[in-house]
């Protein structure tokens, strides 16, 4: 009897702890939404209003979308993100398949080399990467030595190219391919399939969870990316959501309603992707921790 009471007490304490942490995680976002729906007089009222009193003012969302030209901004961001996802899924899976199933001299050393590039932080190469993009020969007003103009700065290729393939993606998909039996490939070879056919028709479909995980990772990474777009694409015509929002901060008077509303709009796509695919995403993260 006493033991059962202890058990229930323990569970209750556990739930209270979890709920408190959960509220701590969620509450700031709720406050954000609340602020975004208020009119300015309510935002700066004292004491603070928990919820908008007058009406729930969705006008903030419309106004900030127009002010920042979100139609263009979301288009730019979507193009960059989708390109990166497709490219990563295609080329990282080809590489992962090769490192896992094909046999050729130097294979393992080469894979180690790919892993080694994971040690290169983006911040260590942002400067030369920018120089590479800005001094790209024969584009954007540059001569064939890359001098004179602005190269691929503020263009789609400049924004997207450095994000098309990730060493992490190669690593992740190779690990997934390792779980598929080698015999499948031998059998298919006996049937006379080409290498690409084996990869495309047999192994790739078997790797759906891995592809889903990488797809979500890449989507999150590119959509949320800030430093690279800030550096290479920072005009109203050519910037991603994160950079557009940060431009609001540089005004003299900060319009908090606009800031909150635009930030919510920036989070929503990522949130949706995450909620839909969280099973794969969490599995993907877990694998990186285990295989380490």
């Amino acid at each position: 009897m006493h033991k059962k009471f202890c058990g229930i007490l323990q569970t209750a304490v556990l739930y209270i702890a979890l709920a408190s942490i959960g509220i701590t995680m969620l509450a700031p976002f709720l406050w954000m939404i609340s602020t975004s729906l208020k009119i300015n007089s309510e935002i700066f009222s004292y004491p603070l209003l928990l919820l908008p009193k007058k009406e729930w003012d969705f006008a903030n969302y419309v106004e900030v979308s127009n002010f920042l030209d979100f139609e263009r901004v979301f288009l730019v961001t979507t193009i960059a993100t989708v390109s990166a996802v497709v490219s990563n899924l295609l080329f990282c899976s080809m590489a992962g398949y090769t490192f896992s199933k094909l046999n050729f001299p130097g294979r393992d050393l080469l894979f180690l080399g790919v892993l080694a590039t994971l040690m290169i932080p983006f911040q260590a190469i942002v400067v030369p990467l920018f120089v590479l993009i800005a001094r790209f020969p024969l584009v954007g007003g540059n001569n064939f030595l890359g001098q004179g103009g602005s190269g691929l700065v503020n263009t789609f290729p400049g924004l997207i190219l450095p994000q098309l393939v990730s060493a992490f993606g190669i690593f992740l998909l190779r690990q997934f391919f390792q779980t598929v039996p080698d015999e499948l490939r031998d059998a298919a070879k006996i049937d006379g399939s080409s290498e690409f056919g084996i990869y495309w028709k047999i192994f790739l479909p078997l790797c759906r969870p891995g592809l889903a995980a990488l797809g979500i990772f890449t989507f999150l990474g590119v959509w949320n990316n800030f430093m690279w777009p800030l550096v290479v694409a920072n005009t109203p015509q050519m910037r991603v959501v994160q950079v557009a929002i940060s431009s609001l901060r540089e005004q003299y008077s900060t319009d908090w309603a606009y800031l909150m509303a635009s930030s919510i709009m920036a989070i929503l796509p990522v949130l949706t992707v995450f909620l839909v695919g969280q099973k794969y995403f969490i599995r993907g993260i877990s694998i990186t921790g285990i295989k380490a």
Partner: protein
Amino acid sequence: MSRTQLSRKESINAIIFLAPSLGFLLIFLIFPILASFYLSFTQYDIFSPSKWVGFRNYVQHFSDPLFWNSLRVSFYFTLGSVPARMFLALGLAVILNSQIKGISIFRSLFFLPSVASIVAISMLWLWLYNPSFGIFNFILNSFGFSSQSWLRNPQQAPFCLIIMEIWRTVGYWMIIYLAGLQEIPEQHYEAAKIDGANKWQLFLYITFPCLIPVTLFILVMSTIWTLQIFAQVYIMTQGGPANATSVVVHRIYVEAFKQMRFGYASASSIIFFFIVIFITFLYLKILRTEA
């Protein structure tokens, strides 16, 4: 086909399959880091051709108070957030690992801040820390405490960013700890329970030792990632007040893109790169001795 013909065909296929991704890594990862080395020995403002200056950039770094300050700030920031965050992540993972209902909801909830973009979260916490209308001061006032200036105060600003960073990323590391916990074979616990071990002993002698590789991994990864922060500083404090939050990467950004000193910034980048490499090698060394 003969054996050698088959293996040559395989090698050719391998080259074709690897060409796009490895070529990409070569151009956009390996070439830039080499270029970074080269640029660090030059003076370059990107408009005029680069000028070779040898080790001058590195020598100047020695006497650059702003650079040393940024190293101090970055390490202080890392020291302040990594242990606390790991402790919290482990605790949450242990709680979530017990067989209670609704685990996936809590898991998603804790993970939520990691998913939102750093920019959005920076704006949010900027608002929370607002001295006049932010909710933190409002709560303080309600309990009779005076308002703080938070991000405007050089002593408090780093602490504010640390709290935000822990809040933002603890869910991510919790997931990895959770995976590590679930890898521990049930038999270990069964055997110990038969021997009469209680909950604490189970944790100390089975759970914790089994988690050492994962803990090491999280320690190194979160250290490296925390050293790399940029967006929060750029948006919330621009390195201030009085350079109290000027982290290394923000310093690199200012040197390159505000002061147009690409050579000098490359030297900063290389120094930063070597710090990351050093930490990684420490980790690999410890990992090898562990095994």
